[in-house]
């Protein structure tokens, strides 16, 4: 019986740890970019940088509100959910962006979008990274490494 209680506790801890885990920055497999600084990442997800170094247009995909990836995105941008929405309304209204980044309801769709658009970039929980997703280093670190800052 104590063994089972311990097992149940471990399951709880694992689920909690997964929710608070590292978030990977993933791009299309053919994208030559391998690393980004946190500032570059912020500019990309804020729509201030709209093309990769090779001139390829950036297509940003984000997850729906309430997901772990979305929380990591808001933390990266230093915004609340309401501020994020208002920010993009302003960006579109200023003519700085054509539309708010596409919100996709599942990681499967993010994977599909990454495969479809050569310039696509998205945030994915580390445990949900699949084949066909190229993971970028952020500030020289891969997700899962000590000191990785996107979580």
């Amino acid at each position, binding site marked *: 019986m104590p063994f089972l209680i311990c097992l*149940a506790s471990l399951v709880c801890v694992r689920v909690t740890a997964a929710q608070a885990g590292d978030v990977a920055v993933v791009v299309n497999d053919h994208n030559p970019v391998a690393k980004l600084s946190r500032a570059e990442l912020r500019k990309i997800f804020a729509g201030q940088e709209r093309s990769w170094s090779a001139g390829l247009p950036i297509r940003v995909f984000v997850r729906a509100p309430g997901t772990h990836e979305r929380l990591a995105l808001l933390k990266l941008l230093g915004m609340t959910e309401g501020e994020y929405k208002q920010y993009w309304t302003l960006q579109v209204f200023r003519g700085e962006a054509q539309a708010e980044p596409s919100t996709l*309801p599942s990681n499967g769709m993010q994977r599909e979008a990454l495969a479809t658009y050569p310039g696509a970039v998205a945030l994915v929980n580390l445990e949900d990274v699949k084949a066909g997703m190229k993971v970028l280093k952020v500030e020289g670190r891969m997700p899962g490494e000590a000191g990785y800052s996107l979580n």
Partner: protein
Amino acid sequence: MEKDRPMRHIPWTAAVLLLFSGLCYPQETSSTDPETIRQLVQQVKDLQERVKLLESQQNQPRQNGSQQNHTDTSTLNPSNPPTPPVEVADQTAPTPGILQEIHETRGIQWRGFGEVDYKVLNQRAPELGTYGFTPGSQGNFYSGDFGLFLTSRLTNKASVLSEIVFEEGDAQTFKVDLRRMLLKYDYNDHLKMSFGRYQTNIGYYNWAFRSAAWLQTTADRPLIMEFATNGGLLPTQAIGVSVTGAIPSGKLGLNYVAEYGSSDTKRPDLNGDGQVTDENNGNQTNVGLFARPDWLQGLQIGTSYYHDQISDNPLSAATGAPVPPPPGSPGPAARFDQTIVNAYAVYVAHGVEFLNEGFLIRHALIGGSLHFDTPAFYSQISKQFGHIRPFFRYQYVNASSNNSLYDDVGLRYGPSFGARYDFNDYIAFKAQLDHTVRRGEPDLNGLHLQLAFTF
């Protein structure tokens, strides 16, 4: 033995229950949150739609496959004419599911902005009334600007943007103003061009907030950034070409802006004398630089230099007929060089909004030594606390009494404070108190209430 069996099940049942309770634990904290429940329900619906789409896509290849088989069979029979080969779908093309999800359409995207205002001023001598506000009244309701914002993506690099505003005038009359109409072409991050009617990039506010009240923290624009057609001092709009882009500058995050166009403006006098000044602006040139340094997220520092030539040509607002120029004016035939230098530092991040802008407007008579300098600035700070955002603004404009172009403006300064309350992502209520000190006139106190919305 049979009697012992139920007893032996108890530990396993308890274990299973514990496991389930353990698995459920992380969700329990949010299960009481209606927003989370709504989001989860939405996600389930999305997934259900996605399954339907996948099922329909799965059926399509089967049909295509059967068609292909039919084609193969027909080609074996020489008596049947060859049928055209079935087109193989482009493997890189987005699937209908993704397209539907990201709404990648080439149609027109609409967005609307509106406001309903109530304002009261203790003005003893009525000033200029704008946006439907009746000067000299005890207080009245008005609807300000109702804006329709339209965008359409033409290609990956080209798009069209327009902003059509229905602005209330006197006695519930409305005029239509095509406030922006731009054909945009973004070659890359370093070269983004716009052709058409734009809002001049003099300073930060005109670029950042455009015209919708819902986007602004305060109920109104600072006087120096008010639209010229509503008594503002700056040429806020022009027709021509605007080019902007990033300058490779590493962590400094430098950007440039260059504009060339016509900013011809008729500016109504602020003091309510019923006159407008037809400035007959020549073509304007505006160049600016701004930096968004990496080391402080949310900081933007910039400067701009604007130049055009204008006249001091007073007209009656009611009839459009010329009126005698004020004493000391060189007359409507004279031209002035108008230069506007601006510098700003703003910080917008982590719920804090801190805007600071300074201006120096110089009017120099061409062919003479007469010149006037008009300094102006505003500073605005606000902080979001949940749904509420209290704000404070201080503004200052000092125009020489001898400057016939700005003789209606004079010296004006004072604070505004209030709060914005966001009911949700679409509706906000603002309450603002203003105190304005005016040279040679009694101080002006005002209360401005505003319901601003977007849809």
